[in-house]
């Protein structure tokens, strides 16, 4: 039932707004609204009950194991939320003079510094509001860098075929042509193919390491050399930074620019799809191009750097300073961990993934890439099960929901047929991992004897499988009183 269907004409939430409506009749009628917006008219209790009940229809980290590959669904410490929502932060207007905003700016400056140290980059900007905006600013900086050197012909970005879809979408948004680089069966980039593709037209390469296939790119130094020798720059997609935090730094691998998904590695909440943060870090030569604003420290006080300070900047990405509430949560999380805690993140995320991968193999599943270390995630391919029992990765995913587990990422990376991309994260205990593997094995047995059980899943959730074709064909995107 929709909130609109709880509505009764004339019902008001009186104590939440001025009781009397002030007159606005001096405004010419033509500029005024003719009729009230058709919002629901409900009591506060009705709204509270409705949205509390809706929340209960969600799976979440706080309620279920959520091994969604490539998304790093780790515990979001409650204290990060409580402390980021202190009134001193919530009531800060974004245009407050810097001198009056020192507490907040100190947190942002410290966050920039810690990100530099953790990734081996020279400087960071916290402005990008999501991973995709981080990518956008990284690629825009690569463009600005080449143009500043008069190299206008560098109009091609190289991207491995295993990459996230945002990589090519971003490159095109920045005005580049995209060329795909094939991946070898062992998960490494095909370096011979890469060599064939570079030239004076090469602006850069976008790489995720460990890759979306869940393995570390072993030839990273050779790849960096090929790109740099051709005059290009190396972009690090930080989607999988959790796997290597404190173990190896993108800066030391030769990357010139990186974005870090703070909502993954640094545990800010996913919030049902955002807000995120795609803080972007650069090597020395790209510092002038960083997006605005950044925070600097001068004589024990902090201030925003603006276009006046940074004339070569690629510019602003939002009205103010990215998503400060998210940045505060990441800052608090990093202070919780400290330098010793960061290393443990990678160690235990990797331990959990490799343990589950070993268990998956022992229980008869086919690994997409065998005989290699898993990073913080690994891939099962269900192509044999699909062939033998006519069940798909989708069927496994839906049946897992019935058994109380959020499904892993399905059908990504696109290169692996019928795949489940599984990322447990470091914050899950062994019994959660074992429970999940038991469930997966149970489903495998069910597929052998009763595939219908999988096809019909889920049975225990608020709805069964939904008709996506109907949703796309008969678009119903909003409530209308007649519908």
């Amino acid at each position, binding site marked *: 039932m929709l909130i609109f269907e709880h509505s009764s004409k004339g019902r008001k939430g009186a104590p939440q707004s001025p009781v009397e409506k002030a007159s606005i009749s001096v405004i010419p009628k033509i500029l005024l609204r003719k009729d009230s917006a058709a919002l629901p008219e409900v009591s506060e209790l009705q709204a509270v009950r409705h949205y509390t009940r809706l929340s209960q229809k969600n799976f979440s980290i706080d309620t279920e194991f959520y091994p969604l590959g490539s998304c790093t669904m780790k515990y979001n410490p409650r204290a990060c939320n409580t402390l980021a929502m202190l009134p001193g932060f919530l009531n800060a207007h974004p245009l407050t003079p810097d001198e009056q905003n020192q507490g907040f700016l100190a947190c942002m400056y410290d966050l920039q510094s810690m990100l530099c140290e953790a990734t081996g980059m020279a400087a960071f900007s916290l402005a990008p509001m999501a991973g995709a905006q981080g990518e956008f600013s990284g690629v825009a900086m690569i463009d600005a860098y080449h143009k500043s050197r008069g190299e206008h012909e560098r109009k091609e970005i190289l991207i491995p075929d295993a990459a996230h879809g945002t990589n090519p979408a971003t490159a095109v948004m920045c005005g580049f042509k995209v060329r795909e680089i094939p991946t070898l069966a062992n998960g490494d980039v095909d370096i011979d193919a890469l060599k064939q593709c570079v030239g004076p037209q090469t602006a850069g390469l976008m790489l995720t390491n460990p890759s979306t296939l869940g393995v570390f790119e072993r030839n990273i130094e050779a790849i960096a050399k090929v790109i740099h020798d051709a005059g290009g720059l190396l972009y690090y997609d930080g989607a999988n930074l959790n796997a290597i935090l404190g173990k190896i730094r993108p800066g030391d691998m030769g990357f010139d620019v990186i974005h870090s998904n703070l909502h993954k590695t640094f545990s800010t909440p996913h919030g049902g799809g955002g807000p995120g943060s795609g803080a972007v870090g650069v090597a020395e030569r790209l510092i002038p191009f960083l997006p605005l604003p950044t925070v600097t420290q001068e004589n024990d006080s902090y201030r925003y750097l603006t276009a006046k300070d940074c004339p070569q900047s690629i510019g602003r990405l939002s009205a103010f300073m990215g998503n400060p509430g998210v940045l505060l949560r990441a800052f608090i999380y990093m202070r919780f961990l400290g330098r010793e805690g960061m290393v443990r993140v990678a160690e235990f995320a990797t331990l959990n993934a490799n343990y589950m991968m070993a268990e998956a193999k022992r229980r008869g599943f086919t690994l997409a890439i065998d005989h290699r270390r898993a990073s913080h995630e690994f891939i099962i391919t269900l192509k044999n099960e699909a062939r033998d029992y006519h069940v798909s990765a989708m069927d496994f995913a839906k049946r897992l929901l019935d058994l109380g587990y959020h499904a892993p990422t399905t059908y990504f990376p696109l290169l692996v047929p019928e795949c489940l991309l599984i990322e447990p994260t470091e914050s899950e205990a062994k019994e959660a991992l074992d429970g999940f593997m038991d469930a997966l094995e149970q489903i495998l047995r069910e597929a052998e004897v009763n595939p219908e059980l999988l096809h019909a899943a889920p049975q225990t959730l608020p709805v069964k499988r939904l008709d996506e*074709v109907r949703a796309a064909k008969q678009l119903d995107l909003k409530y209308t009183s007649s519908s």
Partner: protein
Amino acid sequence: MSEVPSELKYTESHEWLRVEDDGLVTVGVSDHAQELLGDLVFVELPEVATEFVAGDECCVVESVKAASDVYMPISGEIVEVNEALADEPEIINTSPYDSGWLFKIKPSAEELADLMDADAYQAIIDE
């Protein structure tokens, strides 16, 4: 097993072509292509009177999980589009070679001979 009518011409990107009596060429997507795409939910047709060169992207067919470009198989001008697809894109699924046609071209070059016949196309989709 998808259908590959022998009287049509084909491209590697899964378009089919039929030369009509009036010299116009009708274009659609093959049975094999519609099977790969699944239930179609939308077709973005080119505008009539637009001229394209062979290989241009001229049309998009969209299912729930994929959106696929249709490439102009030969150079020419669009003279008619299948308006019925606007409301019922699923016609492509049920009748890819007949009522599910996409558009008609007035060819501007002799390129038909370069295209594949049914046997060659069958060999490609069997791979």
